[in-house]
């Protein structure tokens, strides 16, 4: 459950062409040699070789559109996010790799059994430990400026991070907040709790007036086809985040997350490890007695009991079940016809009567891929304004904050003209290769404050704290669009094979 090595490199083209960070662990390497035996042990190569081999395995050395046998062959073993890296003398396995902020974060966990034959991934805890370590490193580093190199302060800080998070390569704590506090020697100056044991993830204690913040951020993603042979898709999911400033070593908070009685219960609820107990059941066929007696009413109120860490954290995530269809908060149609050089289009959007008609923003974007730049537009919006951004490759229809009270509907009609398409000139910009001819979509971006589509909220009366305290309670809700796509009714659309109805109980 230790790591033999952790390394970070920029994606080709987004930084120096070398590892920017590597940490190896001689004692773990010694163990790897013992566990694998000298005949099967594959040693770590030099930094330069490791850089090349990592990119080679990911196929990032060649263009993505060209067929490359070693990367693209059908019988390549697929274990993402786990990879094998070919080096002199064999393959390093299991290498966990994630990509974030233009960087590749990699680690090689020690397998505490023989790797010949390879054990299934489920038996190697190091893989998931590696995954959490790498995500934490990525969060710890954040975005790096464009001209960074290996001696950038954030990269140097990573040495300290690794020393604290995983001395001897064994992960102790990956939380960026607590690790940073430790590096800054903040843990030594704290008072010691008198009687209770203090959790390792709550090393610093809070003093002062208690506060409790909950934010429910709900997101919706949808693909609307308005077609008889492609079904519209809409799903809602959310996260409940919390920031608790409470005194004591292990203050325990209990809170109820509720939805209205006439709404479907929250489903697929998964919670932070600090949750000690609660109503976290998932609604499934296998749930004894649930479906037969139809008692999800109990689940419209889910109580969670937890000891909060000091830093902000995500108490839980939930997602609407695929079996309960969600009505889209905004229904929309997109009709576009014309030629390469000129199109006429109509976009209709209608806010669902269920949604609070007080948005923070609502904008429809109409990107035009694989065409020349827009030379002329002639838009007629029923409300709001239409803008043509500087790149002249899409239209933005800003609807403002409120739909017409009665109809809740808005329409945009427009005629758009394009310059001749010049593939060379536009090669630097992103083109969706699917969107040729009349294949096109509109994207809708909106945010509704103080609202959740599922009706999910924290019941303020339910908050209990032990030992008793009366912190100031702060509740926030918001509902935003993630990916919200409307396909042109007159073109082809990317769709998937529908799940048969009988499978959706």
């Amino acid at each position: 459950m230790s790591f033999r090595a952790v390394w970070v490199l920029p994606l080709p083209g987004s930084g120096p062409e070398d590892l920017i960070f590597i940490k190896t662990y001689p004692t773990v390497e010694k163990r790897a040699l013992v566990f694998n035996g000298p005949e099967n042990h594959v040693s770590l190569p030099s930094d330069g070789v490791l850089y090349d081999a990592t990119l080679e395995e990911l196929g990032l050395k060649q263009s993505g559109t060209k067929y490359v046998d070693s990367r693209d062959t059908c019988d390549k073993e697929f274990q993402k996010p786990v990879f094998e890296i070919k080096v002199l003398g064999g393959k390093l396995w299991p290498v966990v790799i994630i990509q974030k902020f233009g960087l590749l974060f990699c680690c090689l966990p020690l397998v505490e059994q023989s790797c010949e034959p390879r054990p299934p991934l489920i038996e190697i805890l190091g893989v998931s430990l590696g995954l959490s370590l790498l995500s934490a490193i990525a969060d710890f580093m954040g975005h790096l400026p464009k001209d960074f190199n290996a001696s950038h302060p954030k990269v140097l800080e990573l040495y300290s991070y690794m020393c604290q998070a995983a001395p001897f390569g064994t992960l102790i704590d990956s939380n960026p907040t607590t690790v940073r506090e430790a590096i800054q020697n903040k843990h030594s100056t704290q008072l010691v709790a008198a009687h209770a044991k203090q959790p390792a993830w709550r090393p610093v204690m809070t003093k002062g007036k208690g506060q409790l913040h909950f934010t429910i951020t709900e997101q919706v993603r949808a693909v609307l086809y308005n077609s008889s042979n492609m079904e519209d898709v809409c799903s809602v999911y959310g996260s409940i985040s919390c920031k608790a400033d409470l005194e004591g070593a292990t203050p325990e908070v209990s809170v109820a997350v509720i939805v209205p009685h006439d709404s479907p219960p929250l489903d697929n609820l998964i919670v932070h490890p600090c949750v000690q107990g609660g109503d976290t059941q998932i609604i499934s066929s296998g749930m004894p007695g649930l479906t037969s007696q139809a008692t999800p009413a109990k689940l419209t109120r889910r109580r969670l009991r937890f000891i909060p860490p000091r830093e902000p954290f995500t108490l839980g995530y939930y997602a609407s079940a695929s079996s309960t269809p969600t009505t889209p908060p905004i229904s929309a149609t997109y009709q576009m016809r014309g030629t390469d050089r000129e199109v006429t289009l109509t976009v209709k959007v209608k806010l669902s009567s269920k949604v609070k008609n007080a948005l923070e923003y609502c904008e429809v974007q109409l990107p035009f891929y694989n065409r020349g730049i827009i030379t002329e537009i002639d838009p007629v919006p029923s409300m709001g304004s239409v803008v043509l951004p500087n790149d002249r490759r899409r239209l933005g229809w800003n609807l403002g904050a409120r739909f017409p009270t009665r109809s809740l509907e808005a329409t945009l009609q427009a005629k758009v003209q394009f310059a001749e398409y010049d593939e060379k000139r536009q090669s630097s910009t992103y083109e969706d290769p699917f969107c040729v001819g009349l294949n096109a979509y509109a994207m809708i971006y909106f945010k509704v404050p103080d609202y959740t589509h599922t009706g999910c909220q924290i019941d303020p009366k339910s908050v209990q704290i032990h030992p008793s305290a009366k912190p100031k309670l702060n509740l926030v809700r918001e509902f935003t669009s993630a990916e919200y796509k409307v396909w042109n009714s007159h073109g082809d659309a990317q769709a998937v094979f529908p799940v048969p109805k009988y499978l959706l109980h």
Partner: protein
Amino acid sequence: MAAPSVLQSADRWLSEIFEFRKNPAAFFTTRQIEDGEFVMDILQAMYSDKLGDSIRIVLLSTLQEKSSCLMSTPDSIEQTVGSLMSMYDQTTSETAAFYKSQLLVTMTTILLESGQLEAQPKLFTDFVELLLDTVSKVNSAVDRTVRGTACQCLNEIETMHPGILMRKLEHFYAMSQLECTHVCQNYMALFVQVLKNSIYVLLRSGESIDSSEVTDLLCSRTEPLKPLTLPEDFSNKMFQLGSPKDSSVRCFSEDVDSKELLRCLSFLLDHLYLMTMPCAVTTLLKLIDCMVTAPHIAPHILRPFVTRVEATHDVTLFHALLILKHKFGRQLMTDAEEELLLDRLVSCSSHPCLTPGHRLLCYQWLLNFPENKASDLEDTKSHLPTGLDYTKTASLYPGVFDGLDTTLIKLNLLSLCFTPSHVQDSASATLIGCLVSLQKSIHYGITGRPAITLYRALYLYYRRHYETVLRSDIYKLIVTIVTEQPKFVPHTINFIECINRIDTKDSFPTELLQSSMENIVSTPPSDVLEDLEFHLLLLEKVCKEKSISPKPIVAFLRQLLTSTSIGSNGSWLLGNCILSVCHSIMQHHDTTEIFKELGQLLYELLTSYGDLDIRDRARFYYAMLTNISSQKISSILSSAGTTHSLTRLVTGSSNFDIPSPVQKLQQPVLCLTRIQRRPEYMTFACSNCQQYLQNLQSNQKPPVIHMDYYLHFTEVSSTRSVDKLYSLVLHVDIPKSYKEIPDVSLSCLTLDESQQPSDTCQVISLQIQPLEPVPSKLPVSTVFMTADGQTSTCSLSPVHIQFSDLFLPLPVSSSNRPGLFDDLWKYMQDHSSKTCAESVCTLLLNKTAMLEVIQNQLQEYRIDHVDKEDDTSRIGIFLPPSWHLLLKITAKQDMTVVAIATDNWKTLPLVNTFLHELEESRAR
């Protein structure tokens, strides 16, 4: 000035350290220092406070990671540890706890890596004593961070030397219970590690174990916490880590009292929630290793933990849960609970809030889900849990928001869920139907990952269901792709090769190739030109199949050469592709059957293909075909070692890079010097103007103007060793206004003959066929090979084509010209609204001068009117492909008036320039 110097020294140290880490050996050589000196430098730098903590940590990390190449002797290790120790003593816990902790980590790493327990036991035990002393101060607030790290150091020592701390176990147990600060987890982790190793030592000792031995281990204090005394019979083999293979651990016998062990395990489990996630799961796994050795301890003590973490969104915690399930099966979870866990896993695998890596890992776990029902499949083989019944398969259908990785893994799982039969059924319809979005990408010709994903999915399908109706479904699907989008041929070939790898006898690849081939050869050659190299790549693959007759392919290739222009275009790339097909035929087939056809094909190539290299090789193949037996050819070609055929290189399906063999020369070594212009005259029948113009319009072949040049060496080249150039190809870039000029190929050019423009010099001729009558500057480049085999390329000075170079006399017999001139003039006057135009230009040339100019430069186009005796000279110029320029030049005393008429007004500015050039040429 202190600040900059500190910065400088920090930067200097960083660059030194980076340089060193890259290649330690090279670093020492270039710096000419010994490893010991460098360590001293590092230690000295750390002593000074100027460097700042982050740099000092980088230096410490270097000592940790590279101690093996920094400290080669026991002395140097002792010295380094000594220095670090005195630094440790001088560092205060209040302000520099982190740095102080890392000093401990560094010393521990150095001692462990270099095996100091064996080499310098005193040094080692002294250090352990320091650690033990540090950890003994339970609940001391000031140094808790350092105490925590000291626990980790002891933990690492125990890990590398199992059993060494066994006799201190009771102390650690007590300290774990007493410690209240946040480093309590470090004490517990240390305790579990020592406990686990101690139990293993007991079980492996081979001696009979007293019933109270485990309790004694935990409760009886055998010796004080410090010092660490090594046993009297200590030898190098003691406390050494063994490989997991020989760690067959038994259980304690039934009569061993495990009550205290149970108590301590419960204590640890109850306090697991105090630990950070990574620490909790590693501790848990060591804890269950202890648990399984005691037959009286049932897994149900894990139940509270299981209930607490079942709904976790932490990837590691959930993984630990699965490992517990794997270890204990039904003892831990009932079938109903197992189903809930499976539900949870399925839910997490498609949970939009989790990271892609987390979700992908969930799918991997699904493939090896530990089930209560013993599976008859091997552990390592991926299979779907039987509990994953149809109610849960809904979430395995690829969704519209799924990325390609998720789609592929879902298709893999689906193909495990559904087993199609021999006829079309819902299973086959579902499996093929789920490919729809990938197929759409292919349909729109989107290259890259969607195509790779589709082919991988098909491969997975095929492997599992090759005996079902899917076989023909996949067959149809691939044939369609190859026909509609030939650019995916490399993928198809790879698919076939992968199937061949799993079963060489399978006839599927052959059938697939056969029908793809039939599709290609039945297409008219003109329709395959666009993606020809891909078609040829596939044909090459087809020819490797002995059971498929190459006859239709040979016929197809011949037709291709005779009915299209690829032969005369002479593309080297396509030529190679065609030759690769021929190569493949000759290597894999008996050529007696197709001797004549193949011979004709090769003959066609060697006589008329527009590229010398291709012709040469075709000649070679032809010679082989006609002179050697088929068997011999086959063995020659097989032994030639062309494992990677050229075709695959050019179409990109091969994996190795060819180093660029072509050298680009900056200076031109060759030069073109103009000799003459030889227009090809043509005449049209001309009874009247109308008919003439009609004839002109219907003429398909624009007139050619040959431009002859000497091709000779420049002065630059005399300084180089390029006295003989072989296989020289001259390429002229042609603007849109002219017709393409084929490349000029020469087999050899020697410095002797072509040093200067002279009679011995090589002459080349460029055929200019204007599509519009405009002058141009044509860039010229050349590729050639020198005697030493080096291929080079360079640009030559461009070739200038003047407006007047395009002039031709009126294309009718000279007797008809005067009449035509008048008719055309009138025609142009009448059609001035179209493209025709009239203009007048005056030139400052007197009569004599003007006549001289006409005589010298326009004589060829002069039209003699027998019946007109005036001072006007008439000039009739034909501008290919179909335009005219008519001039009436009237010379006055001190100036000349030129009346211009043309049927292409766009040329007027050019005419104007041309006339003024005449004026200037005279003035000079």
